[in-house]
């Protein structure tokens, strides 16, 4: 009997919450969520949904390269969205590519959030030298722009490992690169809200009670900084996907044999002049829709939760 009640009350609390209320009123947020879930499902289920396996060289027909999508004359019914220069089915590569992009996006955000939250908590809670050092580091890194840092680190990593090894471990390496490049965003926001929370009485009370710092930080302060973390996380997933695409476009990301949306755009770019615009622009459109719905959800969340985000 009793074990039912907490989950029930949590559900009813969610049902009555402002979050759900404003979601029900916001058509754009609903639409974004639906599209996002569809894209996510399509990406996760790519091996089952995709007509062909683009990683499987045996399924590739070089003779069928650069076929246009179905609404243009000269298309082949077997390839709904046409084929790329190597004869891979574009729909399949997009599904697999979205999968890679999403894995890297979420992975990188998980890494940067972990780093940023830890550093932000440390800086905000301990203050002093550690704070000054971490924040100066964040300043320098941000003033270099996260993209720049990612490109430089990506270039170095590629130079150290060599192109082939880099290609083999591209996914974890990109997660690492983007994660390392973007942690300051989190650290600054978390630090700002820690500073705000720290001055409140409950933290003093916890300290007077003799609770250890670690416990105060993670059990008392962190929960109160969750809504800004939640809001930036949404935007950061979108940013990470864009960063990955940018790196791949520069040839510092996913190899063409294992393409993400970014490397698909890159591989198609060379054929733009020959008129095969779809190889570039259809994956591009998929990327934009994916990033756009995440950004729209982030906007909605920010308006609803209305946290004080760190500016600058």
């Amino acid at each position, binding site marked *: 009997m009793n074990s039912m009640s907490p989950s029930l009350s949590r559900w009813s609390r969610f049902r009555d919450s402002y979050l759900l209320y404003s979601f029900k009123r916001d058509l754009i947020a609903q639409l974004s969520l639906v599209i996002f879930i569809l894209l996510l499902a399509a990406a996760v289920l790519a091996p089952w949904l995709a007509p062909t396996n683009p990683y499987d060289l045996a399924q590739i027909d070089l003779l069928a390269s650069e076929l246009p999508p179905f609404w243009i004359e000269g298309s082949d019914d077997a390839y709904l969205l046409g084929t790329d220069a190597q004869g891979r089915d574009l729909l399949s590569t997009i599904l697999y590519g979205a999968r890679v992009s999403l894995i890297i996006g979420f992975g990188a955000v998980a890494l940067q959030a972990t780093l940023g939250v830890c550093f932000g908590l440390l800086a905000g809670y301990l203050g002093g030298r550690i704070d000054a050092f971490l924040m100066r580091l964040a300043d*320098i890194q941000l003033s270099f722009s996260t993209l720049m840092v990612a*490109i430089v680190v990506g270039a170095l990593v590629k130079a*150290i490992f060599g192109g082939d090894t880099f290609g083999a471990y591209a996914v974890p390496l990109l997660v690492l690169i983007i994660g390392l490049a973007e942690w300051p965003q989190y650290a600054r926001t978390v630090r700002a809200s820690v500073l705000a929370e720290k001055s409140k009485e409950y933290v003093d009370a916890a300290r007077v009670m003799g609770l250890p710092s670690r416990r105060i930080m993670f059990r008392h302060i962190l929960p109160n900084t969750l809504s800004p973390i939640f809001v930036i996380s949404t935007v950061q997933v979108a940013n990470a996907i864009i960063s990955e695409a940018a790196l791949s476009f520069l040839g510092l990301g996913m190899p063409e044999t294992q393409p993400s949306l970014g490397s698909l*755009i890159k591989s198609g770019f060379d054929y733009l002049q020959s008129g095969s615009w779809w190889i570039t622009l259809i994956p*591009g459109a998929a990327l934009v829709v994916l990033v*756009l719905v995440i950004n729209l959800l982030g*906007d909605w969340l920010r308006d609803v939760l209305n946290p004080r985000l760190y500016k*600058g």
Partner: protein
Amino acid sequence: MLAFLIKRLFHALLVMFVISVIAFAIQDNLGDPIQQMVGQSVPESERAQLREELGLNDPFLVQYLRFAINAAQFDFGYSYVFNQPTTEVIARHLPATLELVASATFLIVVLSVPIGVYSAIKPRAWLSRFFMGISIIGISIPVFLTAIVLIQIFAIGISWTPFPADTSWGTWLNEVVSTEGGMPAYGRGDPIHVVGTWYTNFASPRGLLYLVLPAISLASIMLPLFIRLIRAEMLEVLQSDYIKFARAKGIRLRRIYFLHALKNTMLPVITVGGVQIGTLVAYTILTETVFQWPGMGLMFLDAIERSDIPLIVTYLMIVGLIFVITNTLVDLIYGLVNPTVKLTGKPA
């Protein structure tokens, strides 16, 4: 003022120090100058001797100091690929990048301020909603994709005679635009020589035309951010008591919006935005790649491709310097605009 400058200068030096350590570490670990100088055929004993002569066996600190002293004199060694001092290579590519960044900055400032202010003053107007919608879409399109789409539409997709042909200026403009089959998609065209390594696109209509697409795509990454930032700050300022008081004083709305509110809005925009303008240099890597714009970004990618370590290191140092200079300038401008910041360094 002096104390403020010294403080800023110290901060800038600190940043440059960090960058130089990173740059040196890259050079020390990745570059092998002997290999580049003498090639494979030279015996190991000779190499060791050369290594000793060049001081490559010296302690890390000594080598770093040598690097730093040379760097302070803008001497970063020779590019492997070009076989020229790296600074000369950079100097050849710098103007193209700076002109691109300047044009994009111009577009951003000229467009974001009026649009941001308008959508804050009339948040419910359909035009404001339209701008906000466009800006969220703009944020979601990666800069290289914007560039590709622009090329597809304006340089490949359509033949391009947008001006009325029945007027003399229209025909003239159409001629300007339509030479060589429409909007140029690649490169800088034939920039006009100004001085030294500086060739400019600003001096001729055809040159400006070459700038249009790259500048628009570079601007497209920051423009939505700026519009949203200005709008959000302005909305907050318009809620403040001093705006209500100004209205209660009977001041004209125009003056309230464009003096009272805008000046306060611009303070945070300058700090956040100024730094962002600096980061435009990073985004030139992407735009220059798409447009084959012969600037530093394209040069940098090329250097990475060919493992031209000295050139990579020089690029990092120069870009770091550009960032440091913009940040310092932004702080100075902020101090000049905001009366509560005293440039004397004393707390206000």
